[in-house]
């Protein structure tokens, strides 16, 4: 079995910041906006190097989304930055009308997504954002898994014409994808080959899925782990090819099971090849204060939960 190791942990939001620094040097049309969270979004270097291409809007996310839409008129490529909660639910109608329906080339970059925001608690931990954003016609939804992939995704979305939701997080997580990877929007990444169960994971849960595959291997179960960094458009072919072999699937995400990756996968399977599926996701609940690790344990978003779900779904074949 192919195994993955890491030597360093970093936050995915720093991957975003590093991507922005790169774009500042390579793409003169890229501009950044931020609603009073520059430090959290790790974009200080971009600002220092491109002060004329940065717009600090203050604590006014609705205005930020509108300004971003307007900046596209004249050829700019705006990247908005705030927490995932304030990037989506707070400004849903602004995104819907001024960006998505208007077909504007805005990149909505959302940090501190999910439970791993930690101690600030449920007011800031959005677990509904993937659902909100994937429902918008024409919106691309991306949730990369580590520092390197978030950096690569940030650079890649500047070349994509159309609105994008890029979701990343706060805690340090293992860096296990290549530094020089080419990020292909909508193309899933097969991490391990297996015959007994397919595990499709996104964001922080990809590393947990790899850990789960090791534990399953010890138990004589071979798991095929697929990194679904792009939830919309979903790489149907990769999923269908894998389940044709394994006959069952576990989806894993730091998100509510309503509206998340798991539901998108279930729709593909239901319409093409009905397949037993288990969902590792939050169960229609808000989060709470705690450390990221405590929260992921309490709400069942870790490798142990993926192992359990895999064993369960294999029995349902």
């Amino acid at each position, binding site marked *: 079995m192919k195994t993955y190791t890491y030597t360093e942990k970093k936050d995915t939001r720093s991957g975003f910041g590093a991507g922005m620094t790169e774009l500042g040097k390579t793409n003169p049309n890229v*501009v950044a906006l931020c609603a009073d969270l520059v430090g959290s979004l790790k974009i200080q270097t971009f600002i220092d190097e491109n002060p*004329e*291409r940065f*717009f600090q*809007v*203050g604590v*006014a996310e*609705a*205005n*930020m*989304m*509108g*300004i*971003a*839409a*307007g*900046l*596209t*008129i*004249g*050829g*700019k490529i*705006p990247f908005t930055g705030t927490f995932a909660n304030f990037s989506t639910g707070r400004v849903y*109608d*602004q995104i*819907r*009308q*001024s960006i998505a*329906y*208007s*077909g*504007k080339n805005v990149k909505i970059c959302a940090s501190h997504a999910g439970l791993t925001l930690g101690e600030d608690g449920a007011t800031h931990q959005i677990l509904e954002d993937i659902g909100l954003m994937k429902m918008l016609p024409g919106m691309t939804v991306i949730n990369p898994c580590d520092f390197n992939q978030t950096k690569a995704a940030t650079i890649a979305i500047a070349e994509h014409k159309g609105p994008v939701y890029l979701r990343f997080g706060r805690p340090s997580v293992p860096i296990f994808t290549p530094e020089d990877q080419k990020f292909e929007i909508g193309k899933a990444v097969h991490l391990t080959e297996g015959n007994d169960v397919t595990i499709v994971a996104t964001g922080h849960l990809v590393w947990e899925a790899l850990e789960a595959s090791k534990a399953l291997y010890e138990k004589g179960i071979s798991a095929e782990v697929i990194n679904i960094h792009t939830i919309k458009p979903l790489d149907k072919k990769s999923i269908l090819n894998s389940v044709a072999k394994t006959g069952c699937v576990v989806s894993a995400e730091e998100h509510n099971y309503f509206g998340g990756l798991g539901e998108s996968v279930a729709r593909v399977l239901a319409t093409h090849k009905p397949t037993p599926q288990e969902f590792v996701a939050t169960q229609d609940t808000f989060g709470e204060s705690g450390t990221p690790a405590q929260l992921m344990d309490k709400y069942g978003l870790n490798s142990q939960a993926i192992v359990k779900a895999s064993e369960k779904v294999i029995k349902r074949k």
Partner: protein
Amino acid sequence: MTNYHKRLFLTPNISISLRMADINKLKTLATQVRRDILRMVHKVNSGHPGGSLGCTEFFVTLYNEIMDRKEEFDMDGIGEDLFFLSNGHISPVFYSVLERDGYFPIEELSTFRLIDSRLQGHPTTHEGLPGVRVASGSLGQGMSVAIGAAHAKKLNNDSHLVYSLHGDGELQEGQNWEAIMYASAKKVDNLIATVDLNGQQIDGATDDVLPMGSIKAKFEAFGWIVLEIEEGNNIEAILKGMAEAKSKSGKGKPVCVLLKTIMGHGVDFMMYTHAWHGKAPNDEQLAIGLAQNPETLGDY
């Protein structure tokens, strides 16, 4: 005359001493636009005639004498003035003026609000209608978009201006005040935002629904240059007021024009009331309205 769709005035001219012949041309156009509005909303028994009629002189003047526009539409609009309609429900006047200024074929006005039309109930870019740069209808979003476009102009070293129009009732939406605060703080001085002060909204007079006090004092307190056009349905007053607004741009502050209009202007039974905000005339009412606005440039 029925295939009239050429621009009346290709050369922008902000001179306030326009020849009387030119003023008369604008009045002639305004009368035809009123007919278009009435006929469009009557045909589909829906749409918003009141605010459209109230802003007819403003649109006609802005598009033909104030804005420096390119003949062909392109989304980026580099090298020309831009306009954003924030109160998108007055789409009938917007569509009529865009059409009469040559942005799309005259026949298309007859498709307003019909299935498969580019002339949606509220303006949108989604169907590719030339002249529209953002969707509007859900209120309060247009000023932010106009600010973004104004920023893009500066980044592109484009000295042209951005114009926007907002309803007075629309100012009850909080996003406006985020935008108003931002525009002065960031010295967005290539933006001229006009507020249609007709004192009416869907449920009644703005002073009854949610009194907003002095909008002038509020904009001034937020650091804007504020101008007032007392006779917002008088083309000469609009010409003078908008020329002055233009002269105040580029001085480190955003410019607000308070345009005092009469909702339903030009159709006597629609005036001075909120009743025609979103209601179409019946056959008899249409006939009366059209009789008060005789055909000038040819109906669509």
